[in-house]
């Protein structure tokens, strides 16, 4: 067991016994080394099940609104930024959440590991490693993969691996490893398409969508009590999936998340159809950065971005669309 894992358990127990937390949300191990699932500990014994490893990809901020309060929660850099947005929007009050922040070296994308070793999954017994490499133990042998190559795409573009807000930080702060030129690489390709070709590109992507709502439900910021995807009167999108309505739904989601989305990438990870959903949010995130130098989820004291106005705000549009 890693030192960080032990400290998470200790902090969880402390939150339950000394801080009056009704529940600690963290991760527990599933049936396999790469299977991890959110865990809700309400007793110190439950807290013994908490783990920290390379597969803790889920954003636990998603569970905070519905959780009994006060709640303690294990948050990575991206997760903590999502919580900041929730705090700015008063969906939860700061004194009701005890943040066990964990600097994160990135989470593993199993699909990136799979073709790299010949071992079939059933022989894998370990998925360990440090900040430089991932070590897959399979069939008694070790396979080493450079960490950067094994990570989820969102983690390779992460600029804030250390939580911006926390009550206790478990582990040392981690410097971002993001390569600035790669940060918006896929986005630049899409931006480069002619408008009709771009529309065609997205409609093709959304041809696959089955409207399972995993993207929406996994999103920590999608907390509308009534969603246009569920409304029948008035009807915004048809219940049966079709590319136009699927795309419309995602555009509404992206606009709703403008100035709020922290690119935690959960929508894309959750999508069972491999639709590159992050690109919609990142386009808006990039424009905000270019236009206003704003990054969502960094300061829980400030007002939400769309509620901010300064006389010094310039009248300008995004590059290339003057």
């Amino acid at each position, binding site marked *: 067991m890693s030192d960080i894992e032990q400290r998470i358990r200790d902090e969880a127990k402390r939150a339950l016994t000394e801080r009056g937390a009704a529940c600690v949300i963290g991760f527990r191990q*599933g*049936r*396999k080394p790469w*299977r*991890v*699932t*959110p*865990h*809700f500990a309400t007793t110190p014994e439950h807290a013994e099940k908490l783990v920290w490893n390379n597969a803790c990809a*889920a954003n636990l901020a*998603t*569970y905070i609104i519905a959780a009994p309060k006060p709640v303690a929660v294990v948050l990575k850099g991206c997760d903590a930024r999502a919580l900041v947005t929730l705090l700015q929007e008063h969906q939860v009050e700061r004194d009701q959440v005890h943040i066990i922040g964990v600097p994160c070296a990135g989470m593993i994308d*199993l699909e990136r590991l799979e073709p790299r070793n010949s071992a*079939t*999954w*059933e022989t894998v017994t370990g998925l360990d490693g440090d900040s430089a490499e991932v070590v897959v133990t399979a069939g008694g042998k070790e396979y080493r993969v450079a960490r950067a190559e094994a990570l989820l795409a969102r983690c390779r573009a992460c600029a804030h691996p250390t939580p911006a807000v926390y009550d206790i930080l478990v582990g040392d702060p981690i410097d971002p490893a993001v390569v600035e030129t790669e940060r918006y690489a896929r986005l630049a390709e899409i931006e480069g398409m002619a408008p009709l070709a771009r529309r065609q590109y997205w409609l093709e992507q959304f041809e*696959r969508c*089955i*409207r*399972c*709502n*995993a993207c*929406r*439900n*996994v999103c920590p910021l999608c907390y509308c009590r009534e969603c246009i995807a*569920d409304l*029948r009167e008035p009807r915004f999108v*048809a*219940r*049966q*999936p*079709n590319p136009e309505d699927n795309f419309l739904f995602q555009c509404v989601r992206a606009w709703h998340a403008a100035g709020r989305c922290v690119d935690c990438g*959960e929508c894309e*990870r*959750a999508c*069972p*159809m*491999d639709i590159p959903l992050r690109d919609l949010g990142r386009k808006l995130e990039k424009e905000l950065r270019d236009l206003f130098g704003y990054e969502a989820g960094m300061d829980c004291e400030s007002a939400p971005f769309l509620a901010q106005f300064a006389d010094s705000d310039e009248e300008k549009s995004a590059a290339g669309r003057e």
Partner: protein
Amino acid sequence: MPDYVIAKDKAAAWLRRLGEKYAIYAPAADGIAFARTTDYASALQPSGNTRRPPKEMFLPAGQMMLIFRQGEQGMQVTEVAPESVASGPRLLVGVRPCDAAALSLLDLVFSENYSGYEDPFYRAARAATPVISLLCAEPLEGCFCGDAPAVDLASPAADVALVDLGDRYFAEARSETGQQLIAAGEGLFAAASDADRKARDQLAADLKARTTEGLPLAGLREKLRGLHDSPRWRELAQQCLRCGVCSFLCPTCHCFDIQDEVVGCAGYRYRCWDTCQFTDFTLMTSGENPRREPPERLKQRICHKFEYLPDRTEMVYCVGCGRCVRLCPAGLDVRETIEELSGVHAP
């Protein structure tokens, strides 16, 4: 019916002949779903499985049922012919044993014997679409078909069951239609030998061993009867995000909703996938919702598969395909749920 073998380099020629009569659907290169193909040489892929099961060929995510128009003579309604679901004969190639078994389970649901209603759309699609299965060379991570009583790996519920024997395919005709499919490959097939049959059985047994975890899928039925009011559902569903991944991608889940699309004074009625995991699945006009939270919905999903349908059909409605395990964004693992519940004592 006799068994056959076909050399691998002749299999494409066989499919080409079948392609003259049928539109052939096989797992697409991206692994997402079955798609129309004329690339007969690569239609039979030995590994992996599609993310979307082939059930959508028979129960599409959206399916028009009737068209209506309010005119001067009143409401005119035109029913959609069930046969139009498939625009002609189709052939599914490379269906995995789990998914083939799932289709035989859906047959029961949509047939008059079990549900009291013969579904014309489903029946028409099934009648127009024979199935050729192919045994997996490798199980996927999360597969547990070895535990599923409905799945027969050596001889799955397909019209023709293929098994890759290295340089040739073992081909078993499991129906009259299957016999005709093989007859269409006249001159390409040879009779299978006892050694071929032995090799087929060995491969199926090996795969079964690798996908068997000892989960009590059939035994859960009796257990669940006493667990309807168990507090365990609450713990087991805590991380559930209420999305539809597990059920939409389940090859045996078949619940649907019926909706109208109306523009002006005309429109159409369609049915589309629905799921017990969605909040509004049981929402009533009064605002009452008997399955408001994930625990009640998990109970519905589990009991429907492992208790209610087994009560009616004597079949367990889980084929161990592992899709819900691999694709749940919250890492919920139905194998854990099954184990937990089978170990729980009734309160």
